[in-house]
């Protein structure tokens, strides 16, 4: 069921609500000692799946998160839940003939999306490939470290979530903690994910990352402009991934993802696939475009192309 439908109709099973209520009551009893301190713990413990929240429930949750994050990081933190826009399908294109492998996109993304600095989590991985061998992942090197890029004889291929139209990752999730929004963004509910990592095994692009440890995010480096399904600080033990900067791209007017802005050579293009006049449509229609692992039928909305 598309998420919009669920959200608007508030489809919701009564028995479930009742069960949740009695669970909450039981939890209340458990929480007796130190009532105040644990209140928000239980609130988040019993939080429903994002897609089943009523408007008022969502508002309450956003307020609670803002309160908690602000206290924790010592500065005002905004948590938005900007919904998808009508008539938009986000698409991404990456010019392989331009990318120089400098990895500014990687660090731009880390900064924008509050990824853990210790241990480091990178939503974008840049592969160094051999010009002679072409796109042969077995020959790919992610940990190249020369004094200067690009290195002769090599080209670079950044990989991040491909926002598959037929995503194997959401299909396998046993609790529907991850799904595709109506604008094509594949998102994770960090409060619902149980951390089984089945989605990681299913993703053909290595786009999903697990919080093996409590994310190390220094307060000074926190980007306080966050989205509940995007770059808000993540808890330990859950999976996270690129969201095409949901907190930026869903704004009105929408902003480019951080990686697009960070790229010094303009190799990254982003736009609305449904808009016939958009740059991304021009690229798809006029350039030599290819899809990574096309044979897997994941139907990505992330395209590689050669402009020259």
């Amino acid at each position: 069921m598309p998420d919009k439908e669920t959200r608007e109709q508030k489809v919701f099973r009564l028995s479930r609500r009742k069960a949740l209520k009695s669970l909450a009551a039981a939890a209340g009893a458990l929480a007796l000692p130190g009532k105040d301190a644990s209140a928000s713990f239980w609130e988040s413990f019993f939080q429903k799946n994002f897609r089943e929240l009523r408007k008022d429930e969502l508002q309450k949750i956003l307020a609670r998160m803002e309160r908690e994050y602000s206290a924790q990081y010592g500065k005002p933190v905004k948590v938005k839940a900007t919904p998808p826009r009508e008539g938009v399908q986000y698409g991404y294109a990456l010019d392989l003939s331009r990318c120089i492998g400098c990895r500014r996109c990687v660090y731009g993304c880390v900064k924008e999306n509050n990824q853990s600095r210790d241990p480091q989590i990178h939503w974008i991985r840049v592969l160094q490939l051999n010009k002679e061998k072409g796109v042969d992942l077995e020959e790919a090197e992610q940990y190249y470290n020369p004094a200067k890029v690009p290195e002769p004889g090599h080209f670079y291929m950044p990989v991040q979530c491909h926002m598959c139209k037929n995503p194997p990752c959401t299909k396998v999730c046993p609790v529907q903690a991850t799904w595709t929004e109506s604008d094509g963004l594949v998102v994770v509910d960090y409060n619902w994910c149980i951390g089984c990592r089945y989605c990681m095994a299913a993703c053909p692009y290595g786009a999903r990352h697990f919080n093996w440890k409590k994310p190390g995010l220094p307060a000074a480096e926190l980007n306080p402009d966050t989205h509940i399904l995007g770059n808000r600080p993540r808890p330990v033990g859950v999976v996270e991934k690129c969201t095409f900067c949901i907190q930026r791209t869903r704004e009105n007017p929408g902003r480019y993802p951080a990686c697009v802005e960070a790229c010094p050579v303009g190799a990254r293009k982003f736009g609305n696939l449904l808009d016939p006049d958009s740059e991304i449509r021009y690229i798809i229609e006029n350039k030599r475009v290819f899809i990574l692992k096309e044979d897997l039928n994941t139907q990505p909305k992330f395209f590689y192309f050669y402009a020259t």
Partner: protein
Amino acid sequence: MKMIWEFFKGTLVLVFRGSKAYYAWVLGLLLLMAAGAAAYVYQIQAGLIVTAMRDQVSWGFYISNFTFLVGVAAAAVLLVIPAYVYHWKPIKEIAVLGEMLAVSAMVMCLLFVTVDIGRPERFWHLIPKIGILNFPQSLLAWDVVVLNTYLVLNLVIAVFILYNLYHRREPNKSFTTPLILFSIPAAVSIHTVTAFLYNGLGARPFWNASILAPRFLASAFCSGPAFMIMLFQVIRKYTKTEIKDEAIFKVAELIAYSMFLNLFLLGAEVFKEYYSDTIHLAPMKYLFQGLHGHSSLVPYIWTAMIFNVTAFILFLIPKTRENFVTLNIGCVLIFIGVYIEKGMGLVIPGLAPDVLGEIYDYSPTGIEFLVTIGIWATGLFVYTMLLRVAIPILNGDFHVGEDGVTPVIADQMFILQRPESRG
């Protein structure tokens, strides 16, 4: 109600009594369980970072053990078939022992999954109606359903049979027979679903081979019965239960066929990958030869291969099959061989090299070992407790008294020393 309560009290009395050997065994298990629990508490506090798993190899030792044990659980019950076919005399005993082994293995499986997930306190998200079980889309959801059904099914069968025998009446056949027969497809299904869990991932060529589910079943048919053979010998040596040699040899014969099938299917897969030599060969190369200088799995898989082939030969030749020394060696070899092959040898090459060609050499940390040992100890503990009650019932040493309410306990020691084993 009163009768059930008295029965329950009787079982409690039983598990607290036994010979010195029994106490030592149980105490040892409890210590290992405590060590495992402590390691798990540490893991909960620090996060899964204390394991050697990382984004590249996101499943490891825990899920390997899980996969292997699903096979053991399935096979234990599948033994019921030969028991029926060969008219194994104490059929009910064999069935009950198998069902109980399945119960213990299932408990271990569920524990392995629990210790593997990042947010175990959110298990309720998996409960239909309260949480959201992504059924029938997610194979993991299927697994949750079939594993729990299987656990309950076996528990019901075992308890029902035992409770009736305790009351000195034949268990109602029209209740047990359908359930036992149903447990056969259920056993096949738990293993098939677990195979499909891996099988359905297009991103992982090593798992994405249609031969995987049959291979799972074939290898389970080796490891489960091998364990049962050893178990039968222990049980008949140290308790009053009688199990005929002939029966054990039949099981061994069955293992020989299964091992043949297992090796044959493996050969078919190796042929396909090596001869066609596509990019999908990489994981298999990583497993059997090492890839780009990474060869941590190679010694293990060859150990497994040698063990499996040796055991196959031992079980094939009637002379070695019917000699208890070689038979037991074969059982041990098979158990270890399949443990490696269907554990780490299956899970890790699926994940390394990873989808972007990176090879991360995974090998479990001390914490992972401790937690794993703790879970194995828990499984053995559960099985011991089940046997502690079941064996006296099967022997007639634990039954209801004249009044139909108070239990009579004739067997105090549980593990008895037979005259011949004293010298």
